[in-house]
């Protein structure tokens, strides 16, 4: 059971150009910073990325976009990212917009071995085009397929050498779902601990879903919208 890797370079060593990747995170919250840096360094390209967002110009998946490593983005919201916009408008980048809950549930379906699910989102909209509509109890649902991905890349708060993962706060978001959906799942963690240190009642992703794990370094954990209130 050799799941522990030295670092991101080793963990992503065999991701080929043209692969389909799931990348955890919501905005810049909970993104796999180390793996993204390693993918940028390695220069693999032609990637299809399933990720709720596409980062900002100079952080997150935005770094991969800068290097033109991404062929297609499957996202729910691509926000503020000038390079993304340029590539999309010029036709260099293919973009598929998926409702956020649909994105999450299609990941979950993959991890649970369910080939398709019925969801309400998008009924009557352009998202429904070409999709099967089915009525249950008087309500229309879209049939949505489980996502297929070669690698899932997530960042967790704590993990053990068996691959068990625990996330912190809203940095959880899509990451457990993607971790369960990857053919090969790579987890970078802030704290890698020996087996036995994590409470077995509190594991978010059991190690059976995680193939590679390493302790990440130099997390920036950038905040996208710093909103505060004054004391007193």
């Amino acid at each position, binding site marked *: 059971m050799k799941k522990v890797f030295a670092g991101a370079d080793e963990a992503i060593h065999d991701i080929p150009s043209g692969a389909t990747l799931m990348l955890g995170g*919501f*905005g*810049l*919250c*909970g993104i796999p910073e180390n793996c993204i840096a390693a993918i940028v360094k390695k220069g693999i390209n032609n990637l299809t990325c399933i990720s*709720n967002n596409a980062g900002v110009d100079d952080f997150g998946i935005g770094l991969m976009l800068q290097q033109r490593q991404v062929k297609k983005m499957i*996202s*729910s*919201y*691509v*926000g503020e990212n000038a390079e993304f*916009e340029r590539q*999309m*408008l010029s036709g260099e980048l293919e*973009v598929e*917009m998926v*409702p*956020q*809950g*649909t*994105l*999450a*549930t299609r*990941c*979950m379906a993959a991890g649970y071995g369910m080939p398709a699910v019925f*969801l*309400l*989102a*998008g*009924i*009557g*909209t*352009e*998202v429904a085009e070409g999709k099967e509509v089915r009525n249950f109890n008087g309500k229309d649902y879209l049939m949505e397929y489980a996502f297929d991905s070669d690698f899932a890349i997530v960042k967790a*708060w704590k993990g053990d050498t068996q691959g068990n993962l625990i*996330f*912190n*706060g*809203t*940095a*959880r*978001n*899509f*990451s*457990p*779902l993607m971790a369960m959906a990857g053919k090969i799942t790579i987890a970078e963690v802030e704290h890698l601990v020996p087996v036995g240190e994590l409470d077995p009642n509190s594991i*978010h992703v059991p190690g059976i879903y995680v193939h590679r794990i390493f302790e990440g370094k130099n997390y920036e*954990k*950038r*905040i*996208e*919208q*710093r*909103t*505060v*209130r*004054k*004391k007193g």
Partner: protein
Amino acid sequence: MGLNKEQIARRIAQELKDGFYVNLGIGIPTLVANYIPEGVDVVLQSENGLLGMGPFPFEGEEDADLINAGKQTITTIPGSAFFDSAMSFGMIRAGKVDLTVLGAMEVADNGDIANWKIPGKMVKGMGGAMDLVAAAKNIIVAMQHTNPKGESKLLPKCTLPITGIKCVRKVVTDLGVFDITDEGFKLLEYAPGVTVDEIKAKTAGRLVIADDVKEITV
């Protein structure tokens, strides 16, 4: 004339009932949290995976792992719970969230809503909006009554790509409060200083006036 954003939020806050679980969208809806009535206990859901959203953190106490669906730094309150995005939309889809408040570019008199895409402009995506409008059991839209050109946003039919069909239950604008009914928009309350005739003039969709129409109190 008419309500300002805070007053729209204040009026919507009157719809909150004790024990409600509420999802507030970005913009005016977010402000509703500031006006929760005394004695009314509501729990705020953030669709990125949190029940029990608290106010913004004090300066210096921001946590990168703790944001809302608008990607703003927030806090939790005692009794909060984190979960993944599938469970988050699962609870919305299963009707566990009592009220969803969101903004819109257009609302049609049958409850259709458009708020995610303007043809010809950069498409940023629907985020969670399509899930929320399709699945939430009670949706209130908070928006300006007219667009910057003065054109009505309460329409017989949405002109923009729609986000969801027949889903809006109530609309609160700077001019009034409207239920969506089989007869179209039903004016329940008008803003102080606004006449019913002005509302008629600025509403392109079908409009009926409630028998007991009255002035908004905020």
